[in-house]
């Protein structure tokens, strides 16, 4: 689940234009980045498009990466910017992607569960809706901390928010999530 950093040598090779090395990077980070974006936009097609954009931008800007050991933080930062730009564009064009359209959320929330899942679909749907009910800041910190196991310092580098704010947002996000899923868990 967590983003173990890829070997700095691979990043250095990609930096010097080695496409194969970048392919390795994609294989390593494709899933977490795509999932992180999907958690924000909740639309698989759009998430794939934005993940593509993230990797293209990353490749083109590899020269600007100072610390190869913090590659994933840098990459998530790009993903976050891509999502923000997309949301801004969507607002401009008044074609909201659906963060506040429960119907489309509901449609997306089923379908992704593979057979033999450990959590039942109802609980997955409930968590999904609880995530969507969080505001953007809380959802991002929740996703980066709980799903991607980033440290506060890394999340601060990705989002630009202070650690104090991140802690508060995370605490509140967890409280809101708990409030939504606990009744279901208690009934089990």
């Amino acid at each position: 689940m967590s983003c173990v950093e890829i070997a700095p040598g691979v990043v250095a090779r990609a930096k010097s234009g080695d496409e194969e090395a970048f392919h390795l990077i994609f294989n390593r980070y494709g899933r977490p980045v795509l999932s992180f974006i999907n958690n924000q936009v909740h639309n698989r097609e759009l998430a794939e498009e934005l993940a593509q954009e993230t990797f293209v931008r990353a490749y083109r800007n590899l020269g600007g990466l100072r610390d190869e050991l913090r590659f994933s933080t840098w990459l998530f930062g790009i993903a976050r910017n891509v999502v923000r730009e997309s949301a801004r564009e969507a607002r401009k064009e008044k074609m909201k992607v659906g963060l506040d359209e429960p119907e489309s959320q509901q449609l997306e929330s089923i379908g992704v569960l593979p057979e033999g899942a450990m959590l039942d679909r109802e609980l997955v749907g409930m968590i999904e809706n609880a995530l969507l009910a969080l505001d953007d800041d809380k959802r991002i910190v929740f996703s980066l901390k709980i799903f991607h196991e980033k440290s506060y310092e890394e999340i601060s580098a990705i989002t630009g928010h202070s650690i104090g704010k991140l802690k508060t947002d995370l605490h509140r996000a967890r409280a809101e999530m708990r409030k939504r899923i606990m009744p279901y868990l208690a009934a089990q």
Partner: protein
Amino acid sequence: MNCQNCQAELEDFLYGELKPSRASQIRAHLIVCSSCSAARDELEHEHEIFTQYYEQTALEPAPEMWEAIRSRLHTEPLPQKRINFRLGWGKFVWLSRPAVIRQTAFALLIILLTATATTFILRRDTDKDRNAKVVRDEPPVSPSPANPVKPVDDQPNQANPALTAQRGGRANPPRVASRSKPLTDEEIINRQIARTEREYQNAIRLLDQAIARRKDELDPGVIKQYEASLALIDNSIAASRRVLRDHPTDPAARQFLLTAYARKVDLMQDIAMR
């Protein structure tokens, strides 16, 4: 460690965000406190559910996604910024950063203050010249108890070698002038004007580069209007400079020139910060 402190930090404890000493204290408390221990179990259970949720719902990129990325890397033109870099403009990209624009604005403010001060000094000097002329035209004032005329040897700045020798002192050797002729007031003012004009021109150059970087992002209508206004201001600058060439001491022409520059800078700043 009490329960309140422990529970307040329990989440950070589970995330491994606490310092080792603090984590040890919490660990010790959890061993002896069943209530905090139960809270920890609950948080861990929640965490487990979220982890499972992520594992089950995380999207696996389709193989076509890499192909699409690769194809974009090969076929799409590089962004404007990179093209500019290749043309040698890349080193100026920093000019479009908000911090640089803010600093430029600050520099401009200082230039504006300098220009205002210069204008003020110009006016004051002009008034002084006028007053001096009036005084020269008037008859000389005779010494009076209220307005005594100091004897020469009371004036320390006017060293008289003969008198100094009489007093047994040494006469100061005549100072070697660093310049054959001292600057006149007019020359000082003209230098100040030229310096201010240079500073404006530097600021204009920086702003011009910042605007050029952003030109594609700006509305074409705004650009058109901006270019028309810029042409008008440039005409004013050229006209003021012509007048100054013919009448180098004309304070109105000087003020006109500096005002036109200030207007140009304001306009460019407005566009650069849009």
